[in-house]
Structures are given as structure tokens and as C-alpha cells.
């Protein structure tokens, strides 16, 4: 069993990194859009800059944690749902 583990890891690391890179970035974009929506009282220039600065920590935070997923499939499913959740909140926030 122990001998199988590295192979499982090697098979999935590309899928995990891709999930973290792509879905992590879209998640960061969605979060920054949600922030921009909720912080509508802030001056536009400052809001835009803060929304840009928050991309890197969210994106790379997700990318760095992606290896905690059990498999590449789990990573895509988990991060995909997180994306849908934030996009849903974004859609809801329109009716606030």
C-alpha cells in the first residue's frame, strides 16, 4: 500500500496544479468582484486597487492549499463548487 502512494501523487499533481491555477484564479476574480460590489461606498479608485491587490493572496492561497485535496478530481470538484458558490453570492448581491 505504501508503495502505491507516491504513484497516486505523481498521477494527480498536474490535475491539482491546473485546478489550483485556473479555478483558484477564477475564484479570486469572483471574490474581488464580490468585494467591489459590497464596498460600493468606497471611492472607485481605491476600490479598484484593493480588488486588484486581493487577487494574488486568494489565487496563490488556493494554489498552495490544493495539495490537501485527496485527488485531482476532488480538487476540481471542490474548487468548482467554491467558484459556483461565490458566483451565486455575486448574482444574489445584485438584489441587495
Amino acid at each position, binding site marked *: 500500500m505504501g508503495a502505491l502512494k507516491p504513484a497516486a501523487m505523481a498521477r494527480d499533481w498536474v490535475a491539482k496544479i491546473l485546478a489550483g491555477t485556473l479555478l483558484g484564479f477564477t475564484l479570486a476574480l469572483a471574490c474581488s468582484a464580490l468585494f467591489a460590489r459590497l464596498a460600493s461606498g468606497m471611492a472607485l479608485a481605491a476600490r479598484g*486597487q484593493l480588488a486588484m491587490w486581493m487577487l494574488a493572496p486568494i489565487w*496563490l492561497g488556493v494554489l498552495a492549499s490544493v495539495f490537501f485535496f485527496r485527488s485531482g478530481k476532488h480538487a476540481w470538484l471542490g474548487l468548482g463548487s467554491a467558484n459556483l458558490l461565490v458566483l451565486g453570492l455575486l448574482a444574489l448581491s445584485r438584489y441587495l
Partner: protein
Amino acid sequence: MRTEFIRIYKSVHTWTGIIAGMALFIAFYAGALTIFKEPIARWATAPSPLYGSAIALEHAPALIVRTLQSQAGAARDFRLHLQSAEHLPKGLSWQVRQPTDDEHDTSTARYYIATLETEGGTQVAEVQPSGLVKLIDSLHRVVGLPADTDPNRWLMGIIAVLYTLALVSGVIVLLPSLVKDFFALRVGKNLKRMWLDAHNVVGIASLPFHLVMALSAVVFAYHDGFYLIQNKISLDGKSPSAARQASPSGAPRDLAQLLTPALLLARVQALSPSFEASSLQYLNTLTPRASVRVWGHDPAAHSPRLTGGFVALDPYTGKVTNADFLPGRQSSANAVIGSFFALHFGTYGGAPVRWLYFLLGLAGAWLFYSGNLLWLETRRKKAAANRIAETSPVPQRRDVRWLACATVGVCLGAVAGLSLTIVAAKWLHGHVASPNAWHPLIYYAVFGAALVWSFWCGAARAAIQLLWLAAAATLAIPVTSLLAWAWPALGMWTHTSAAALGVDATALLGGLGLIWMARATRQRALHGPADSVWAITAARSVRCARDR
């Protein structure tokens, strides 16, 4: 399950670290120097009547008006310098760039200074400000590549992403044993254990600094792209640049109504009494969009930009048009954004923070160097305990030997190259037409030669020799100043300001430190374990055999 994660993150840490490590060494070593780029520029600037003192404020209005009347190139953007330092022009300075120039690429720009003559006329001269600190800065920003271009910045961005992953994974690997390992520096027989402990202590202790650097470096590399994507998908459809104030329309301005710098400074003083102005940057002075930025620092606040902060006024009415970047007087949102820059550049807290950043930068460079050493040590083939290592060294894997050579060549080559190109600022002055073209040549010649030498001789010998070279090059900084002082006929100079002497003193300490490292490395090579890439044994290396 937990150990499984640790193992995965250990390989993430290993591979991100080994790919990005050497580039990050250059970025951090050059970055540590950029903290003191002003003192280095002062050290490197030749004495000249055009530099080193500020004109009296009451003479400035006449100089500004006359310069604007006679110099078409100055109107777009010129600066009045209020402080005196060896590298600061006396009076006004501006640059004329080619329209093809990139935002950061100023290689084709021409520089001018306008100053007052004693008879009351103005004198305009084209000058060549030292490009030394620009080279250091550019090496810092694009991981040692020759040009600060978009593709090179994107490459730096990838390095910064790997660096972030290396940081997070390194912390995850260390977490389970953090309490046990953090308070333990096991000095002793097990050298690898000691290096690992030191690597962990430095990494954890400077983790906040490294997280700030990694994330802000990613933003600095990709902010254009980030804004572009956000604008494309943004439901607001507006960007910060679109939000910039629309320019007021109106007739061209009448120079006779230009307010004096003294009046403008008084206006700023009223706005923020603790603000210390250093220069006035006049933008588009002859157009309806005329604006003057009063740049400076506030000792009690962080600066939102590397060169400080500013308040923008209309130079004809004195009306404040933008105080978003005034240190200590920013809105909380702008202060937060400004703090990202201040945290990267160390522009808060004055000299103690700058020294702290300098040391953290050097410690960061050491972190990547030691990371590579640990990679090598983990992969080293050990001699069997009963074998006599001196007579039969264990052949190490080729990738291990090559990574050792690359680490030594890149890291020590960068250190020696930077020191030598700094020294060259004084020796080349007056002997070559454009010293600024020589600075990168010298750096890359030393860097390239060190790399080749390291692969030719093997890491063990090259490490010692290149450390001696780096020590000699670094000690040449204060020695050059000493020679210039003792023999003025050499045509060099020794500035006696605390900043310039500080460069000499720091280089002296750095050079002595490098000598200590060279001696310690030699000790290890000759008397350390023979089954190591760092060992010099008679059997292995016949090339470069110059055993001292």
C-alpha cells in the same frame, strides 16, 4: 494521512525552491542593496558644480520661468530639487524620452539640468547621471536578467508564484514539529541538521517579510494583466485609470501667474505640518492640465511609494487637486493600499527599518543558498563507514554536482559582479565615454565568468576562489575611497557625507564577512567529510589544482 500531506508538501517545497532559488538569491541580494540605493548613488556620483547643493528657494521662480521659456523638452515633466546630496542636481532636472520607450526602460532617455549662474543667467547642460543604482534595481526586479521588459517581468512573476508556494509548503512541512525545531539550533557534528535548523529559524522568523515580498512581487509583475482582466469582466465597467480626474479644460496658462515654490510649500505645510518636502515635480506646466506634485516624506507615517508620497496642486492657483498620496493624511482605503508598497520598499519607520530590511534581504538570499545546499546534502551519496574516504571518494550524481556548480557560480558571481560594478563607478569616471554602458557589461562579465569557472573547476574549489573574489571586490569599495582620498591625482573622489561613508563602512564589514566565509569553506573542503560535493580531494579534481 497527515504524514502523507507532509510528504507531498515536502516535494512541493523542494521543487519550487530548487527552480526559483537561484533567481531569488539575485533578487534578494540586489534587493537588499536597493534599500540603500540613495547612499550608493551618492557614493558613485562624481563631484560637479551641477550636483551636491540646492539652489536658494527665492531664486527658483526665475529659473523655472526662464527654463520653461527656452527649453521645450522641460515643460512636460521637470523637477525642482529642495535637498542637497551628492547625486541631486542643483536646480531643475528633466529627461527627454523617446516615444517608443517602455514605462521602466529609460535606456534611451537624455538627461538635462538647468541651474543659475552667478551672473543671473541660466545654464542648461546635458548630463549622464550614474546608471549604477538603476542596474542594481533592474537586477532586483527581473531576477538578474539584462532588461526590465514585460516578458522579463512576467518571468519574475512566475518566480514569485513559485516562491509563494515554497513559503507556504515550507511552513506546512515544518508545522508539526515547529515548537520542537524552532527553538533548537543543533550545532554539532551533524552539519546537515544544523543547516536545516538554521534554514528553518531564518525562514520562520522572517516569514511575514517573505509573504509580503512574494505577494507584492506577484502583483508588481502582473498588475497590468490583473487590471485588464478585471475591467473586461467587471460589472462596473470602470477602472481606476478611468476614474482619474478628467482634465479641466481651459486656456493655456500665463507663466507670470505661476505661484512661487515657497508659496506652494507653505500651502502643503498648512495641509500637513509634519510633511518634509524633498522636491517639486512640475507636470504639463504650460497646459490647462498643469499640476505640481510636492514629493516628500513624513517621519511619522508610511510612504505610499518608493520615493515617498506627494500632494498635487495647481501651480497657478495653489488649489490642492490630489491628496490621496500624502503620507499620514490618506483615507484608510488609500493608506492600506499605500502600506502594500511601503511594506515592500521598507519606506516606513526611517533608518532602523531600512537596516532591518537590508539584513532581512541578505538573510533571504542566505535562505535560498542554504536551501540549495540542503537539497545537495540530501542527495549526496555517502561513503560506506568502513571505507577510507580519502583514498576513494564516492562519485556523486551528475545533477548533484551540476546544481552545486550552478549554485556557487550564480550566487557568488552575482555578489562579486555587483561589488565590482559598484567599484567601477569611480575607476571608470573620466576614462570612458559612457560609464553607464559599462556597468551592466562588468556585472555580466563577472557573473558569466564565475559561472563558467564554477563548472570548470567544480563547486568545491570554485566556492573558495569565488568567495575570495567576492571579498576582494567588496573590499575594493572602501579601498577605492581610501586611495581616492590619499591620491587626488587618481581623478577619483571620496565623499565625506555619512551616507557615502556608510557605503564604505558597510562594504568593509561585508568584505570581512566574505573572507570569513572563504576561510570556513576552505576548512570544510580540506577537512570536512570527503564524500561530499564540497570536499577537495587529490583524487577528484586535477583541474584548477592550486591548493594553498
